[in-house]
């Protein structure tokens, strides 16, 4: 049969962010695919080198809208470790509450999007309606529904008042009830079951070979969660469980994410009830950071997020490298799509919970031959100097 190239993206109703897949199909079976991830590249890693530690956190939050708190927290905790700061307990608890609320809103959003990809818009409307309760709580605590800007080096920006805590506690039983309903719905709704079961199956060996992280990996039986295995914030004091599944298909990933929703709710409830008294930031934050290098890791809603930070004794980071979980998961999509149906593309892509704002890397395309590749730093500097005639600082 003849191979037809079906382009998905950069503008496509299935995608929430621009990405380009060139999918080669024979009939309705996929043979291979090519990816282009560069549409959302904004140069944030470079921009972070020019801002001091107070000004850089709002910038890093804006890497992604949905996992904004993750980026800010992982950077803050990395710098605090380099500076050897002891963050007070109340601040850690507040950071954990925001982190788990963020995980809840991200997973509810994902559940709606996964339902939308199979045309089941009812579940989209219902999950996003319940997500409003989480967003209202986040707005009361921090002032904004996304981009909370709660972190500072050495603590949090705002304290939680009695009223905010009480309002949050009041919303939790309703959310718990709704999550239980979604567990029931997902395990009995016929169309979801037949569209998700057996689709995009990846075995444990393949997951480990391609370096997949997060709920995608945990759905294939890989028992790894950064919150437990490289603990940070207060995850070692709060009782919670890692959710895994052994089926490895999209249905397994759904079950893992819904399980994580319940676990997050328990963590939020525990933290709110046991919030310790005390200051919310260290007494005085140093302006400069000593020379050092650190790899700071965090379990974002999509998986393991890693920031590599190198400091050199000034008040700015010398080099920041962000490895987001979605970047690690794209290989699994490319492998899982082979020999699947054309109709399963949105389902398999949505199953890794792609966040292209997090992922984008630069791609160099030769407009003549349409060949794609990457470019070294020296080559880029040379080309920019030749093209724009300006001095670019290496």
């Amino acid at each position, binding site marked *: 049969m003849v191979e*037809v*190239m*079906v*382009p998905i993206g950069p503008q*496509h*109703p*299935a995608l929430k962010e621009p990405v380009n897949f060139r999918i080669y199909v024979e009939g*309705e079976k996929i043979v291979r695919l090519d990816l282009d991830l560069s549409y959302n590249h904004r140069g944030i890693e470079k921009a972070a080198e020019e801002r001091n530690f107070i000004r850089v956190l709002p910038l890093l939050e804006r890497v992604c809208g949905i996992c904004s708190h993750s980026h800010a927290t992982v950077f803050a905790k990395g710098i605090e470790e380099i500076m050897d700061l002891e963050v007070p307990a109340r601040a850690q608890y507040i950071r954990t509450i925001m982190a788990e609320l963020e995980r809840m809103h991200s997973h509810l959003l994902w559940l709606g999007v996964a*339902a*939308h*990809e*199979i*045309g*089941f*818009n*009812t*579940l989209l*409307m*219902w999950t996003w*309606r319940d997500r409003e309760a989480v967003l209202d709580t986040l707005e009361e605590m921090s002032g904004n529904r996304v981009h909370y800007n709660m972190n500072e080096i050495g603590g949090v920006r705002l304290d939680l008042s009695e009223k905010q805590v009480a309002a949050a506690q009041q919303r939790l039983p309703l959310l718990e009830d709704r999550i239980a309903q979604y567990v029931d719905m997902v395990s009995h*709704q*016929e*169309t*979801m079951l*037949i*569209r998700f079961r057996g689709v995009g199956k990846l075995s444990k060996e393949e997951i480990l070979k391609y370096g997949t992280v997060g709920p995608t990996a945990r759905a294939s039986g890989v028992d790894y969660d950064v919150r437990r295995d490289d603990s940070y914030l207060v995850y070692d004091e709060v009782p919670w469980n890692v959710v895994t599944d052994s089926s490895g298909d999209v249905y397994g990933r759904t079950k893992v994410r819904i399980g994580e929703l319940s676990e997050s709710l328990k963590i939020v409830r525990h933290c709110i009830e046991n919030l310790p008294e005390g200051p919310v930031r260290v007494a005085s934050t140093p302006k400069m950071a000593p020379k050092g290098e650190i790899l700071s890791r965090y379990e974002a809603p999509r998986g393991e997020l890693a920031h590599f930070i190198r400091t050199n004794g000034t008040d700015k980071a010398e080099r920041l490298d962000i490895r987001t979980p979605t970047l690690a998961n794209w290989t699994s999509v490319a492998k899982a799509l082979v020999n699947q*149906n*054309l*109709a*399963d*593309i*949105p389902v398999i892509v949505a199953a890794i919970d792609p966040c292209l704002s997090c992922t984008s890397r630069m791609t160099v395309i030769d407009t003549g031959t349409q060949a794609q590749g990457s470019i070294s730093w020296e080559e880029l500097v040379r080309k920019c100097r030749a093209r724009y005639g300006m001095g670019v600082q290496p």
Partner: protein
Amino acid sequence: MIDPLLLTVYILIFPGFLFLLAYSLFFQYIDRKLAARMQHRVGPPLLQPLADFIKTLGKEVIDVKGVDRGAFSAAPLIALAAVMTAFLYIPIIGASPLAFQGDLILVLYLMTLPTLTLFVVGWLSRNVFACVGAIRSVTQLFIYEVPFFLVMLAPALMAGTWSVSEIVAWQQAHPWCAVLQPIGFVIALIALQAKLERTPFDIPEAETEIVAGPWTEMTGHRLALMKLAFDVSLVTGSALITALFLGGPEVPWVITPAWLAALAGFGLFLVKTLAVLFILSTLRVATGRIRLDQLNDIGWKYIAGAAVFQVALVLVMNAWWVQP
């Protein structure tokens, strides 16, 4: 025979084309409102479908280079004409004045034309998504058409006539065919949902997979008229199921002033078609889209099998139950 002026009013105004167009816009409103309320949203106001139609009519028509413009412009008109004509043969306020033996087959044939024109449009647009969508729509046509025709056959076999109006008249003296042939009724509803390409069978137009399938390159007035054709198709399909299974507009007892009987019949017709719409809307909201190969599986194994079983059952019932 009915006098020509009255016939012209019947065809053009009521219950012909003008009523049909108004009723199909109203149906779209009820469908969208029901779906919205079931999803805990507000839904559009009453005149929204009319506003959408007028707006789409005024949009720019984008002609793809190298595509046959004549076929593109003719396709929505053919589809619309076909389903509007089909509606004339269905009893609305009593027997249709155009009824003849075999008009059931004519109605069923006319109702397949929108899907075929959609296939032609999709095939001719030089667009990968439209091509895939067109192939899917024809594949789906093969899958649901067989059970749909078979279960429409069953009431005709039971009533012993090939005219829709006479089947409706037969149901005045006997229980409704929905009661006598429940399997057939359920399959007719499912097959109608597939014919109208609504969830869970909106595979040809899968928005998240192939942009808009065969609808991708349709713009402006062509899109408005094709959408209107599918809306009218919804009304015609519901009216057909009402006529064949739910007794149509016939009132189960005799009412003396003839105009009152006609009015009561018309009122019953409205209620019954809205009930069918309610079932179809609920089905649309409660499910997600299935894959084409899964539809193939379910369609041939269970739906077609049940339809054949229903027809066999009707033949057995006919042999055992002596017709008066």
